[in-house]
């Protein structure tokens, strides 16, 4: 039965590709258009307060998080409903990550890290909806997320340990002659952290979405053979679903690793 449905769907894709092929096939690939920030209610000028598609999709992310974590757990069931078990799963996943990676005393940062993870993962998944806008594909967004992590961790480190926090850069287990060199490298790597957090997330999401758009452009250009890029898009979309989760996970776990440095700076 499943096999039959599969073949019927396959045939439909091929036939529709033939039937709906544009009369004048032309290569019109604009992979970056999808990232354009536009005012929602018309107008060319985008001021800092203008409601834009960024606003829309961020608020949709808030809505999705609200539905999942608040409405999903509204029943407070001892035996969880489906939504509630997903909410519990997310909670347990991040809580355990914070506890295991950053240590027991990092648990007070858990709401903050959970906020980061939930925002990134929902924004990534919402971005996978066709025609949507992906907020996490913008360096302005991921950059702020990364800088927030960087500032929070640096401030935490200095508040908790004072000048001893600088010991993070002074590798006391290395030979004395090497320590200044290592300290320089450590300082550079410390300041590269937010940059890498920012570029990694936005770069992955942007590249994936751009590739999808490029394949879609091929589909428009190939006429009756358009089903080939459509299959490629399907396959690549699955990969993007994986990437959407993994990048949120990576961002969160790196935050936990950095947080551990701030809480226990001994090298």
């Amino acid at each position, binding site marked *: 039965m499943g096999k039959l449905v599969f073949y019927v769907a396959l045939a439909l894709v091929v036939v529709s590709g033939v039937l709906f092929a544009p009369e004048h096939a032309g290569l019109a690939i604009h992979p970056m258009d999808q990232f354009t920030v536009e005012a929602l209610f018309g107008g060319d000028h985008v001021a800092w307060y203008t409601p834009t598609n960024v606003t829309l999709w961020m608020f949709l992310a*808030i809505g999705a998080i609200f539905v999942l*974590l608040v409405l999903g757990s509204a029943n407070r069931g001892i035996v969880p409903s489906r939504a509630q078990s997903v*909410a519990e799963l997310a909670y347990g996943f991040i809580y355990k990550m914070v506890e295991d990676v950053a240590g027991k005393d990092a648990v007070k940062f858990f709401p903050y890290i*959970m906020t980061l993870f939930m925002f990134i993962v929902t924004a990534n998944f919402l971005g996978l909806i066709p025609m949507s806008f992906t907020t996490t594909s913008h360096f302005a967004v991921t950059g702020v997320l990364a800088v927030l992590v960087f500032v929070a961790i640096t401030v935490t480190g200095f508040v908790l340990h004072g000048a001893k926090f600088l010991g993070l850069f002074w590798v006391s287990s290395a030979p004395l002659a090497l320590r200044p060199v290592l300290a320089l490298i450590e300082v550079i790597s410390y300041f590269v952290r937010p940059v890498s957090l920012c570029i990694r997330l936005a770069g992955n999401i942007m590249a994936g979405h751009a590739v999808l758009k490029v394949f879609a452009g091929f589909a428009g250009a190939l006429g009756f053979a358009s089903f080939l890029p459509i299959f490629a898009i399907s396959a690549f979309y699955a990969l993007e679903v994986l990437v959407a989760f993994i990048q949120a996970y990576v961002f969160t776990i790196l935050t936990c690793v950095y947080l551990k440095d701030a809480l226990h700076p001994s090298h």
Partner: protein
Amino acid sequence: MATNTHDAGHGAADAAHGAADAAHGSSGMPQLDFSTYGNQIFWLLVTLVVIYMILSRVALPRIAAILNERQGTITNDLAAAEDLKAKAQEAENAYNKALADARAEAQRIAIETRAEIQAGVDEAIAKADVEISAKAAESEAAIAEIRASALDSVKIVASDTASALIAALGGKDDAKTIAAAVAERTEG
């Protein structure tokens, strides 16, 4: 950064390509359009604050409470199960004990009943024995009596016969001699 320049190059090529890019023609890569940064950062901060409020005020405490409650329920249920198991064990022990008691009681009753019946039977036998011996003695006495009366009858008949014989022979009967002769003969 190589990717960025590559993408930017792509964008530039696109811009050269078509009219669609005219709307935002200044930069091929919207990510590098700094005029929108303020907008994005503002809305991002709003979003993060809202999400943080939702999570820290409502969602996380509630989910933590649910998980705790479940843990508590599970612990309680396990304890209750342990309790019930102990009770079941107790009940089984009580049952076994009752069974053993009942068995012992039944045995005791059986033995008692058997002894009672045996005693009854013995008594009846003894009684019957006594009765039998009494009856036998009685019978013996009756037999002796009958025998004695028979002897007496024999003596009378013998003496009558003897006197009749003597009379027939023309003799004179002497009662004393006949009685002595009969006694001598019947004794012998």
